[in-house]
Each structure stands twice: as structure tokens, then as C-alpha cells.
């Protein structure tokens, strides 16, 4: 049935049958949908069994791939013609190489853990079966994308993930905010997806094929320079990278990712931190030669390129935003965005291996952090994620969650000998060695900021005095996790509380918890803590697969054939030799970030009411403005929703109105503040005359523009048609004139 693309000597059963890995969850999805409701556990057992089966095959494939790399570098391709249209044939199948195997085992493993976790977390949910069905379909989509032998299957998996992401973010759609977050995520990502479709079509135009691997695949042809037009390749890379920007939450399309935290926590942990969002990074890594050559990466004299710049900007702005979040999941979301920025920057500076390795390590510790946040909300803080009102002082009560959180945080911050250190530090180091000094500095600043915001989050969550929901849990009501009756009481108390909880994760579950682990009687049940322990263990040790300080490079050896480019001259640069001196700046900055943040957290949030830092943002206008700027997410959301979305609905008149409302009012406000500070003269002259004059004038202009353009929006279909055809004719005329 499968026509072997290349004559391979026996590569082992698991490698030959890796295509089963996405097929099993795909079948399971239909089983859950059709029979799940009748099953004793609502279909979750089918999902878990399917993911376990996938994981077993993926693990077997990993083992056999490691054996395989001892004597061969060839990928194991198997394809089946899926459909054809005229002369074009599209196949479906598998392209198994190191990168695919790494991602397969990662996704299957984390999906399994998250499904186990979910059995407790969404227990009793009204759409329990659908939740597991969507999770399983998501895994099938991601796995199908990962082993895609061509771009068509890649797009297929990519879109399945987008759909599942939408369904899972909006899982509790009864609350309007969740439904809106789901729509926002979907549309923002779709904006980028246009790039994927255009880019894929352009790949077909440039190379005449959509196959990724093989002698006549995209990678090989790009690496060998078998294309006509370099500029065409450049635009292809740009279009594809726009898709990666959307999916991986890079600047400026990162705004959907924090809102996506409206979904259930297991979803955030699986889709929006460790697997789906790295799809964009994976795309760049998968067809790296296209980007490397198309965007002039590692060309002498080029110190900037599109990918590195976007990645670098993302690191800094997302880390900045993480400081002002009170919602623990949003801190983690921005942290994810920032870490994805590291991966992109790594790819942008030619550090393919460290970037891919960072995908690997980041998945473990970020998944673990999210699951910790879910564990806290589930058990410790009454389904609230607000660190300031409902957490604090949880370390004694929730030892497992606390320890796993700290290990993962250390890994995330890049503390030496934790996994994040080996991957992140190598990205930073490569940026330095490959002569991208600016991005080296950005990476270092990012490391500092990462430690600082994670220290703040850790402090607020686990230390200090327990507040709100956590206070109920920590002080007295010890039987919270066992006694359903006392939970009812808690909820009543909560209902009477004057401070309103932003309960965006209240999942209407009856509160009969499962059994906790024996050594942590107050912590979450074992279904939650067991995945935490496993993941944090991996967060600790995964880095040693590619530990440059100890000259352990197994990971590199397994994956280097996937790059598609030679290492060394004419390809990507050799990885820099590790020296502790080079790692020193980042270690020092990590420690500094920890110290500064701890000091500030202590001063600002607790104990010391008279501290000069308390309420600093309210008193100092400069810091206050910065704080406001961050809280409003750099006003990007206002830009997207206020300008771009509305300008599609009601073109220029609305945009003028927005300018009037937001920009000019903003100008008025800030000038007004300065005015009060500097006195009556400025007040009389600037505020009253200039600014008011400007506002009135621009208001009149906006009205005028609206009036002129309004007849165009007649609502008459024939008028719209005339505009459409007229514009098409004029466009064609311009093209004819330009080309003749």
C-alpha cells in the first residue's frame, strides 16, 4: 500500500510505522465523539489509551532512530498519493528524521500527561467528553504536522490545530470573555495563516514541488541553490515567517496568546505553551534552508535579519509585559511568548540546534509551570488565578506543587545545571559567536528579565501572607481537598466576599477530589501531582542530552541531518565551543534578576507599608506612565481592534474617529498632566489654546472626511460591485502599463 520513496534497508518496525502515531489519536477522536458519552469515564479512557499507544510507538521510534543514526543519515520517507488535480499530485505519509522524532515523542508524551491531569481538572464538566475529543484531535493534528512529508500535510495539521485551539479556548463559552478570546485567537492566527497559504503556493512556484525531504525536496533544492529567483525565495520566506509569527505569538501578533489563557489550564499548558505554539518555530526549523538562504542568515556583514529582529523584539516586549500581570497564567503566557522569541532569535542567528533544543527543554518546564498554576487554582485558591488577591503563602500546604514549580522556574530562568541553561545559554552564546552582537545583548537582557518576573510570580504565589481564596485554604480549613461539604461553605464565603474574583476558570465542577499522594496530604490529587513530578524531573535532566559544558552532544548527533544545510563552510556556523567565561554574563544577570526582583517584591507587595517603593507607580508619573503602557499591552490591542478591525468595517471615517478619540485624547491627557505640573502659563497656553484647537480642528476634519466618503458606503450591492470591477480594471491597467 505504501510505496517506498527510497530503498531503505530495514529501519525497524517503529520507524517504518511512525505514520500510526497520528492515526491512532485521529481514530480515537471519532470513537470519543460517537461512543464517549456511553463510556463509564466519559471517553477520557479512549483518549488516554490512544495517547499512550502513540507515545509507546514514538518512544520506540526514538530508540530506533538513535540506532539508525549510527549508520545512516537518511530520513525514512513513506508516501501514498492522497489526491491529485490534473498534473499535480499530493501525497500523505511520513518523513521521519531527527527533528520529527524529537517532536513526536515530545508531543505524545506531554499530551498523555495532560490528558491524565485533565481527568481530575475538568472532572464533572458538562462537556467532559467533548473536551477529551478536542484534546485528542489536537494531538492528532500536531503529530500529523510534525511528520509531514510535504507542505500540504503540514498545512492540514496546522489548520487542525488552529481549529482545536479555537474549540478549547472557548470550551466554557457561556462566559462571553471566553468566547471572545477564542475568536480573537482564531482570527489573529488566521491573519498569519494567510502567509502560510501564500508561502506554500510560492514554494510550489519556486521549487515546483511541495515535498520537504528527499533529493528533489524543498530543503535539498534550496540548499543546492536550485531556484531561479533569489528575491522570490526571499518573499516566500517572508510569507512563511508571517505564518510563524501568527502561530508562535511573535510580535506584533502576540496579543492572542495571553487571551487564550481563558481556556482550561490543561489546554493552556498543552496547546498554548509547550506544543502548538512552537509550530511556528517548527515550521522555520523544518524548512530551514528556505529561510537561511532566503533571508541571508549568517551572511558576513549582515547583522540583522527579519527572523532575528522579530524574535529579539518579542523577547523584550513580552518579558516587559510579564512584570505587570497579576494573573499567574498571564505571567506564564507572556513568558511563553518571550521564550518563543528566544527560539526564533536562535533560528535567526543560525543557531538551529540550540533553538530546536530549546523547543525540547522549554516544553517540559513550561508545561510543568502551567500545570502547577492549574494545581494551585484547583486546590489552593478557589479557581482564581489572581496572584495578588487569592494567593500567597502556599508553599507549606502544597509542597509538591511548590517544589515542581521551583525546579521548572529555575529551568526557565536558565539557572546553571537546569535544562533551560543548556539550551537558552547556547542560543545567547551562538548569537555572540555568530557576530550578532545586538541579539546577544537582547538575549542577556531577556535572561535578566525572565528571572525577575518569575521571582516576582513565585514570591507572590508561594510566599508572604495568604490572601483571599488561598487564605481560606491555608488558614484552618484543612479538609478542603476531602470534604465536599466544606467546599460548599467556601463557595458561600466566596460569594459574600466583597472583592470580586476574576473567575475566568470556574468550571462548574462538583468538588469531589481524587486521592492525593500520601506524602502531600493537602496538595492536589495524584492525577495532578504525578504529571508535575514527571515533568519537573525532565525539566531538571532533559538538558543533559546536549550539555555543552560537559561536551555531551548526543542530541546534536541525532538531529543534525534534519537541518538540511551543512555545518561549517557554506552552511550554518559551527556551534561555539563552550566556555564558562562566556556563560558568566548570563549567570550573573540571572542572579541579579533574582536579587533585584526579590528585594522589590518584598518591599512592594508585603510587610513594609512605609516602603518608599510602595505605590511608586502611582506617585512617580514617569514610572506610572510606563506601568500604564505595559498594563495596556503597549496599546497594541487598541490598535488592532480600534484601527484595523474597525477600518475594515467602516473605513476612513471610523479611523479618523479613533484618532480623535485615542491618539489626540491621549495627547491631551499627557500634555494636561505636564500642564498641571508646570503651572498656569502652560495651562492657559498649551492646554486651552493649542490642544483644544487641535482637537476641534481635527474633529472637524474627521467629520469632513467622513462626510465626503459616506456616499461610498451606500449599502447598495451594485455600487459595491461597480467599485470592485472598477478597481480590478484599474489594477489590471496599471499592471499592463508597468509591464509594457
Amino acid at each position, binding site marked *: 500500500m505504501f510505496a517506498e520513496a527510497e530503498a531503505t534497508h530495514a529501519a525497524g518496525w517503529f520507524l517504518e510505522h511512525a505514520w500510526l502515531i497520528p492515526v491512532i489519536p485521529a481514530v480515537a477522536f471519532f470513537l470519543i465523539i460517537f461512543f464517549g458519552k456511553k463510556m463509564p469515564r466519559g471517553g477520557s479512557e479512549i483518549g488516554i489509551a490512544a495517547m499512550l499507544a502513540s507515545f509507546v510507538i514514538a518512544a520506540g521510534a526514538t530508540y530506533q532512530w538513535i540506532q539508525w543514526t549510527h549508520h545512516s543519515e537518511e530520513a525514512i520517507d513513506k508516501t501514498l498519493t492522497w489526491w491529485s488535480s490534473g498534473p499535480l499530485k499530493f501525497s500523505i505519509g511520513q518523513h521521519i528524521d531527527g527533528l520529527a522524532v524529537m517532536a513526536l515523542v515530545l508531543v505524545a508524551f506531554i499530551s498523555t500527561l495532560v490528558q491524565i491531569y485533565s481527568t481530575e481538572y475538568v472532572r464533572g464538566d458538562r462537556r467532559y467528553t467533548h473536551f477529551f475529543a478536542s484534546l485528542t484531535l489536537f494531538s492528532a493534528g500536531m503529530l500529523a504536522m510534525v511528520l509531514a512529508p510535504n507542505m500540504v500535510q503540514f498545512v492540514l495539521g496546522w489548520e487542525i490545530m488552529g481549529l482545536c485551539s479555537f474549540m478549547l479556548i472557548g470550551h466554557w463559552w457561556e462566559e462571553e470573555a471566553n468566547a471572545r478570546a477564542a475568536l480573537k485567537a482564531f482570527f489573529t492566527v488566521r491573519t498569519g495563516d494567510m502567509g502560510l497559504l501564500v508561502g506554500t503556493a510560492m514554494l510550489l512556484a519556486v521549487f515546483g514541488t511541495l515535498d520537504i525531504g528527499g533529493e528533489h525536496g524543498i530543503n535539498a533544492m534550496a540548499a543546492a541553490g536550485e531556484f531561479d529567483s533569489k528575491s522570490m525565495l526571499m518573499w516566500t520566506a517572508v510569507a512563511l515567517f508571517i505564518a510563524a509569527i501568527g502561530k508562535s505569538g511573535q510580535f506584533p501578533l502576540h496579543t492572542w496568546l495571553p487571551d487564550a489563557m481563558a481556556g482550561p489550564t490543561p489546554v493552556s499548558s498543552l496547546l498554548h505553551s509547550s506544543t502548538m505554539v512552537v509550530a511556528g518555530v517548527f515550521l522555520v526549523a523544518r524548512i530551514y534552508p528556505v529561510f537561511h538562504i532566503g533571508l541571508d542568515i549568517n551572511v558576513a556583514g549582515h547583522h540583522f535579519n527579519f527572523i532575528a529582529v522579530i524574535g529579539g523584539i518579542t523577547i523584550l516586549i513580552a518579558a516587559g509585559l510579564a512584570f505587570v500581570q497579576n494573573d499567574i497564567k498571564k505571567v506564564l503566557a507572556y513568558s511563553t511568548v518571550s521564550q518563543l522569541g528566544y527560539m526564533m532569535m536562535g533560528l535567526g542567528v543560525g543557531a538551529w540546534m540550540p533553538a530546536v533544543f530549546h523547543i525540547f527543554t522549554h516544553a517540559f518546564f513550561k508545561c510543568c509551570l502551567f500545570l502547577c498554576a492549574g494545581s494551585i487554582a484547583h486546590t489552593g485558591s478557589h479557581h482564581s488565578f489572581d496572584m495578588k488577591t487569592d494567593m500567597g503563602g502556599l508553599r507549606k500546604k502544597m509542597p509538591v506543587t511548590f517544589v515542581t514549580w521551583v525546579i521548572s522556574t529555575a529551568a526557565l530562568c536558565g539557572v546553571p545545571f537546569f535544562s533551560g541553561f543548556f539550551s537558552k545559554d547556547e542560543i545567547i552564546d551562538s548569537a555572540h559567536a555568530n557576530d550578532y552582537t545586538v541579539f546577544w545583548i537582547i538575549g542577556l537582557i531577556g535572561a535578566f528579565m525572565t528571572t525577575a518576573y518569575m521571582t516576582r510570580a513565585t514570591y507572590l504565589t508561594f510566599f508572604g501572607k495568604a490572601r483571599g481564596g488561598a487564605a481560606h485554604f491555608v488558614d484552618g480549613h484543612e479538609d478542603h481537598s476531602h470534604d465536599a461539604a466544606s467546599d460548599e461553605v467556601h463557595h458561600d464565603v466566596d460569594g459574600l466576599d466583597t472583592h470580586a474574583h476574576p473567575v475566568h476558570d470556574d468550571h462548574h465542577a462538583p468538588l469531589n477530589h481524587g486521592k492525593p499522594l500520601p506524602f502531600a496530604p493537602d496538595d492536589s490529587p495524584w492525577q495532578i501531582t504525578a504529571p508535575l513530578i514527571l515533568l519537573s524531573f525532565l525539566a531538571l535532566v532533559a538538558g543533559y542530552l546536549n550539555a555543552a559544558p560537559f561536551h555531551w552532544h548526543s542530541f546534536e548527533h541525532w538531529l543534525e541531518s534534519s537541518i538540511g544545510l551543512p555545518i561549517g563552510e557554506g552552511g550554518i556556523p559551527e556551534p561555539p565551543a563552550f566556555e564558562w567565561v562566556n556563560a558568566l554574563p548570563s549567570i550573573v544577570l540571572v542572579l541579579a534578576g533574582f536579587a533585584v526582583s526579590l528585594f522589590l517584591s518584598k518591599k512592594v507587595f508585603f510587610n513594609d507599608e512605609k516602603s518608599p517603593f510602595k505605590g511608586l507607580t502611582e506617585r512617580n508619573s514617569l514610572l506610572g506612565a510606563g506601568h500604564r503602557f505595559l498594563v495596556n499591552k503597549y496599546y497594541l490591542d487598541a490598535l488592532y481592534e480600534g484601527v484595523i478591525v474597525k477600518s475594515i468595517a467602516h473605513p476612513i*471615517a471610523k479611523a479618523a474617529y479613533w484618532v480623535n478619540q485615542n491618539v489626540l485624547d491621549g495627547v491631551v491627557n499627557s500634555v494636561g498632566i505636564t500642564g498641571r505640573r508646570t503651572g498656569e502659563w502652560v495651562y492657559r497656553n498649551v492646554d486651552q489654546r493649542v490642544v483644544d484647537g487641535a482637537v476641534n480642528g481635527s474633529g472637524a476634519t474627521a467629520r469632513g472626511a467622513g462626510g465626503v466618503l*459616506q456616499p461610498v*458606503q*451606500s*449599502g447598495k*450591492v451594485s455600487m459595491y460591485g*461597480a467599485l470592485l470591477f472598477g478597481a480590478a480594471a484599474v489594477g489590471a491597467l496599471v499592471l499592463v502599463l508597468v509591464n509594457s
Partner: protein
Amino acid sequence: MLLNQFLILGALLFCMGVYGVLTRKNAVMVLLSIELILNSVNINLLAFDAMNGNSDGNVFALFIIAVAAAEVGVGLAMVLLIFRNRKNISLDDLSEMKG
């Protein structure tokens, strides 16, 4: 026969169809004009096919005929629905999109 005589005829029919779509008020008449456009495309496809001596264009022409049949069916159903609700089928009165 020159290729262009067919192509120009197609272009002429196409532009007539565009004019009809834009000026007709009655929804049925707009649908008639759309048929004109679809036919002009078919003429183009078959002319190119005859020039190149292959049959792919014939296949597409058949597809277009099928799609046109579907389009007329749905389009007339919509016109009927509009007529039932409003007692006329003047497209100019359908201006809910007025901005």
C-alpha cells in the same frame, strides 16, 4: 481561425455581463447577467483547449456548467425568499449594509 476571435468574443460577453450585473435592479436579471459572464469564461477555456490540443479545459467547462446550475438553483431560491419577505426583488432596496 484565430484564437483571438474567440477570446475577444468572450471578453465582450464578459463586459456585457458586468454591465448587466451593475445596472440591473431586478435580482433575476442580475442572475441572468451572471450567466453571461460564466458563458464567456467557458468560451475562453474551450478556445485555449482547441489551441493546445488537449482536453483539460473541456473538463473545467463541464465543471463550470455544473457550478452554474447549482448557483442558479440557490440564487433563485434566495430571490424567492426575498420576494416572499418583501414583496419585491429590487436589489436597491436591500441596503442593510449602508454605512
